[in-house]
């Protein structure tokens, strides 16, 4: 199997799907001539031409609005919003148009729109480029929210997102672009949306982690394994709809749960998981559900504050030990 980076997995997914279905096209700032602000659309302009790989003005509302219109007209657009922080500029198109079209037209119009965007938490690029807004969009019914943590998941999930008739917010992380993984060389390799992946099997503590936090959870699991603590790491991969069945089955087995997230605790992903576990698995819990998240504050400029921001492996190890105490 070929080894691919996260970034090339995304490019491959788009190329394969554009080749497979000529209704699929890509729009966004610098996606065409520049090959993507982060290089995640390299080669696509040459392969598919300027009609299907289009640079846009710096107007997020127009980018998503065109995507919504094109999707209603029968195309299957992929639009790129450079940073997830910019969703505020196009939230009406996302929340009030894309998310509701299927519903308000009673299915007459479908909304096969993919909004690719990047979360750049912990890269030191300040309060406007460091947010984790998956919970913000996951709050809106009608949207699917996908957040892959590995190249293979990124490819399989993006291909599924492009083939999905519903609007999908596809959240990448720039810091993960260069990690590598073997990926099946198969143009029909898909990972279904809404299905969590057990990244590591364990029996003592369930750690639910998403995006950037998955690798840290796995590192922490490896560390405490030496102490005899067996950690199961679950990556939901799709934030909405969330695969609670897999999480609940794991917690019912381990009786302890930690949720690690780049998004804030307050009304966040961890809160949602903890609450659902409380409802589904209350009588299986031997400890309160724990959450690890960045502090409830805007992110500062500079990497010198990293240790105060996202949970690291040491914080996860400490929380796991706490749950086992």
């Amino acid at each position, binding site marked *: 199997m070929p080894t691919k980076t996260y970034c090339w997995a995304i490019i491959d997914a788009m190329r394969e799907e554009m080749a497979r279905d000529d209704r699929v096209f890509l729009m966004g700032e610098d996606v065409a001539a520049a090959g993507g602000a982060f290089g995640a659309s390299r080669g696509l302009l040459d392969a598919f031409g300027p009609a299907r790989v289009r640079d846009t003005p710096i107007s997020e509302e127009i980018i998503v609005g065109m995507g919504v219109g094109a999707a209603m007209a029968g195309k299957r657009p992929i639009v790129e919003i450079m940073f997830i922080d910019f969703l505020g500029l196009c939230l009406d198109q996302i929340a009030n148009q894309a998310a509701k079209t299927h519903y308000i037209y009673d299915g007459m119009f479908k909304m096969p729109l993919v909004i690719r965007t990047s979360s750049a938490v912990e890269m030191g690029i300040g309060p406007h480029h460091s947010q984790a807004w998956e919970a913000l969009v996951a709050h809106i019914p009608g949207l699917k929210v996908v957040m892959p943590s590995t190249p293979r998941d990124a490819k399989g999930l993006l291909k599924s997102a492009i083939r999905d008739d519903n609007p999908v917010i596809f959240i990448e992380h720039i810091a993960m672009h260069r990690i590598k993984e073997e990926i099946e060389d198969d143009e029909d390799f898909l990972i279904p949306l809404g299905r969590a992946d057990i990244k590591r099997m364990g029996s003592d503590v369930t750690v639910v982690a998403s995006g950037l936090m998955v690798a840290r959870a796995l590192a922490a699991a490896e560390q405490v394994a030496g102490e005899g603590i067996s950690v199961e790491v679950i990556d939901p991969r799709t934030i909405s709809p969330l695969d609670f069945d897999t999480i609940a089955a794991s917690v019912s087995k381990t*009786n302890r749960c930690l949720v690690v997230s780049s998004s804030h605790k307050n009304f966040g992903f961890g809160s949602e998981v903890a609450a659902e576990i409380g409802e589904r698995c*209350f*009588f*299986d*819990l*031997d*400890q309160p559900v724990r959450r690890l998240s960045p502090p409830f504050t805007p992110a500062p400029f500079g990497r010198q504050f990293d240790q105060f921001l996202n949970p690291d492996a040491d914080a996860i190890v400490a929380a796991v030990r706490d749950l086992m*105490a």
Partner: protein
Amino acid sequence: MAHEVAIPKLGLTMVDCTLTGWSKADGDRVEKGEVLFEIETDKITSEVEADAAGYLRRFAEVDTMHTVGAVIGGLYETRNAALAATGVVAVALEAVEAEPVEAAHVVVPAAAAAGRLRVSPLARRIAKGAGIDPGGLTGTGARGAVLRRDVDAAIAGRAMVAGPGPKRRPLAGLRKTIARNMMQSLQMSAQMTAFARVDMAEVVALRASLVANEAALGVRVSFTDIVLKACAVVLARMPDINSSIIGDEIVTWDEVNIGLAVALDDGLVVPVVRRADRKSLVEIAQERLDLAARARAGRLGHEDMVAGTFTLSNFGSYGGDFETPLLNPPQSAILGIGAITDEVVARDGQIVIRPMMMLSMTFDHRLIDGAVAGRFRAELRALLERPATMLAGLR
């Protein structure tokens, strides 16, 4: 000021009772001598009459326990005063009854004592399924939380003991009374038990003759009746045995009242044959039959159970030879008699077979010295071996 309604002391050993009923309601007019309430002690129910007149205000609930002297109500000048009275509500007994024996059984779970009980939902569920009260477990989690491992440990510990575990029921009622009396007996006196073998041949002959004449006598005289009568005769002669230590005094009783242990299905009661020294065998037999029948029917009155000065316990009827009976406080002596069995004994240089019986006597060694106890035993044995001599004292 109102007249206090208090729990009376109905017997020498009465310590507490259960208030089982009120005959009057709050505000009712009560005349002196009217039945006011009902209490239960030692499985005996007694009605208590008002010792003054007035309007009643009840301070105690039915089915609560109280010590002797506890104020459970008041009698007032007017109905309004009674209804307005806010007397101190009589506190039920549980806290008062701090006897060392019972206190030893009070288990206060650490978690409960420390405040809120912290049990994980999982631990609670597993405990419930296993029939374990998580409140009784020691939590090893944060801030004393009971976790699954604590319940698992309890289950594992229980698995060491085969079966579903011990069955528990409250120590209450007659059993509680017996338990308290037996413990008091051992704690409050110095008990010494001595034995003597008695040749019962002549008692056997005497009884055969009495049974043969049952129709004429009107009652079937038992061995117990004969032994009881013999005890009464000796006790009348030996007032030192028919005595009690009560507080700082030695009380020598003016009556010979012999308690007779009667086993019930769920306990034991000791009704009393009063003035047994002055009663005939026939009277004793009749009284014994009546008391035993009423004991088994649960219809003994308080007056049937009090004022005993000595106790006779016939454990021979259930196959015993000798025992070490416990005194029935404040009595100073108790006699246990075993079964009459044919035994090989030496008599006048010959080996003979005689119907023998063992006397097991416990004395309060504080009051009764070994020599006195020995003399009592010897006199009793002499009477039983020559029962005809009892005729000598007949008036």
